[in-house]
């Protein structure tokens, strides 16, 4: 494989990989504070894209994106308050079914609001044909935008969890909810914050990839499965490992197309990886086996 082609596939893989990583981080944030997987995580990405596209006709692009992220964030918080906050120690099965139901309803409402057409935000800089030469490959400037925004977001998140008091309180809830409550942390509010945070980062991802991959009402399920694959691959709950796992999956997918694997089976690759990982290393590639022994798979 010539170098130009190699770097072309590599960049395509990294672009998709970073999006999967963002969805996986969204899963992890909620999983850490509540122990549940939010099956509606992919819908946040769709909502971010769709709302920003609608707002863009009323206001300049940067403002539309900020508003879309803010609206999606409030929506995430609202979902938690209405559907999850008041349940007394719900079973895992119950939570799975509720979040699946939410994802269906959000998708159907989106279908009725925005229709089943494919929409996209305009390119942040340049247009469809403009490109930058890197290592012999022609890269759309939007790819660089996506990489930059997502990298900054991951960095900010890790700083947020390490150095802000809110981030540390969420961490405390994640590691031991009872102890955190005894220290005066309002655990329920932390759960709401975690939904808002993961809705917001999902929406940001939805905005930056919209020009490249475009936005459709039913994009959520596919993203949720890929994101979950990545989260499990990295070890559920471990956000930094999710970035590495996301890049890995994205690059595998891109090169599988490169070597002539049928495009329609691209999803099947991710799912097969998921199944194999679940059976062989349920604690993930980077997870700790002993720590995982305490969790239920």
């Amino acid at each position, binding site marked *: 494989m010539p170098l130009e082609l190699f770097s072309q596939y590599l960049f395509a893989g990294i672009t998709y990989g970073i999006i999967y990583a963002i969805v996986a981080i969204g899963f992890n944030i909620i999983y850490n504070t509540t122990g549940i997987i939010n099956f509606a995580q992919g819908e946040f990405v769709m909502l971010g894209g769709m709302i920003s596209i609608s707002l863009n006709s009323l206001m300049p692009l940067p403002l539309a994106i900020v508003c879309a992220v803010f609206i999606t964030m409030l929506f995430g918080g609202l979902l938690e308050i209405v559907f999850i906050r008041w349940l007394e120690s719900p079973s895992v099965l119950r939570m799975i079914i509720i979040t699946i139901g939410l994802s269906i309803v959000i998708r159907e409402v989106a279908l009725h609001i925005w229709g089943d057409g494919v929409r996209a935000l305009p390119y942040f800089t340049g247009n469809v044909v403009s490109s930058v030469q890197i290592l012999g490959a022609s890269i759309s400037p939007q790819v660089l935008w996506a990489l930059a925004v997502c990298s900054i977001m991951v960095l900010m998140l890790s700083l947020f969890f390490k150095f802000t008091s809110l981030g540390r309180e969420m961490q405390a809830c994640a590691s031991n909810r009872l102890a955190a409550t005894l220290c005066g942390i309002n655990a329920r509010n932390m759960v709401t914050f975690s939904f808002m945070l993961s809705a917001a980062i999902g929406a940001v991802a939805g905005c930056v990839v919209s020009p490249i991959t475009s936005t459709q009402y039913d994009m959520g399920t596919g993203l949720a499965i890929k994101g979950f694959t990545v989260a499990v691959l990295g070890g559920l709950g471990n956000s930094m490992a999710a970035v590495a796992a996301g890049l890995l999956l994205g690059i595998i997918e891109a090169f599988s197309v490169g070597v002539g694997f049928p495009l329609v089976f691209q999803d099947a690759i991710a799912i097969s990886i*998921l*199944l194999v990982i679940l*059976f062989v290393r349920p604690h993930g590639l980077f997870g700790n086996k002993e720590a995982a022994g305490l969790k239920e798979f």
Partner: protein
Amino acid sequence: MDSKKTMPVLIFAVVLVALQVATSLSGRDYYLTQLTMSLYTCLLISGLCLVMGYAGQLSLGHAGFFAIGGYTSATLTTLNLTSALEGGNGLVVLLAKLGLLVSGTSLFGEELLYVQPWLAFVLAIVITTVVAFLVGIPVLKLKGHYLAMATLGFGIIIYRVVLAVEIFGEADGISDVPGFTLLPGLTINGEMDNRVINYYIAAGVLFLGVLLLQNLIYSRVGRALRAIHGAEDAANAMGINTSRYKLYTFVISAIFAAVAGVMMTHYNGGIAPADAGVMKSVRYVAIVAIGGMASLWGALSMGAVLTFLSLRGMFGSYDDAVFGVILITIMLFAPHGILQLPFWRKFKKSAKDE
């Protein structure tokens, strides 16, 4: 058999007959088509109910098993073997000698030679059983989210395969599937004057299935399953081979789904990729949840009512959304199914006291 077991079965049989009589008397024979389809869906639901309610395992991949059954049968019975027989294909000649091929004519008068539906049916069941074992052995070691995602992943792979493989008709699916003659005079097809017979075939198949499950639930196996649902570790400690029981129920329910798939495909004369879709699986889970997980009768009645309303187009373009809303509402306010709401329990209690 004590009355606690036989009564519901008898009532069930009476309701099935009464439905047919009521539609005929009121001159609404056209309802029978949707009712028949609802009954086949109920067959799948009853199997899923065993897995979810009694063994406590979530499966988001049952539309996949339905599709394996339906597509296997549809592919084999629409494959025209006339030229293969003339060409002297060894396998086809052998099948012809064994009398396992059926001849017929297509709409355009073309001569057709296809695999006997019974053979296709048996093959569909065998394939489903093998796939269910292969998927079930590793998957059922998982719990909670992992199990949900793994079965969802299985369903999506099946959907992708039928959508992308040419022999399965890609996005169009398979149409012109011939009827399935169970016995001379008893044929599963969508012809108008066959409607009442077909309703009773569906009712009979469902009745047999339910009888089987009912016996299973009240047997040693059923008690073991409930023990697994209640506390798996405790059940294990009592000497119940939990993983084997879980695997067997999973396989049984997959076979139920495949039987439903085969019969529905012959009844409709075709199958499409949407039948393998994830939304279908979610819908089945929703119906079992509404019925109250571990309630066969709840799942059956809800399955029949909701599927019928959905097929009649009562929910319009909000079809999927309605199931989503139902799913959320039930799980929020009545996680044990609507038949377990305080209102109903009070009603039952007062009926007992009198």
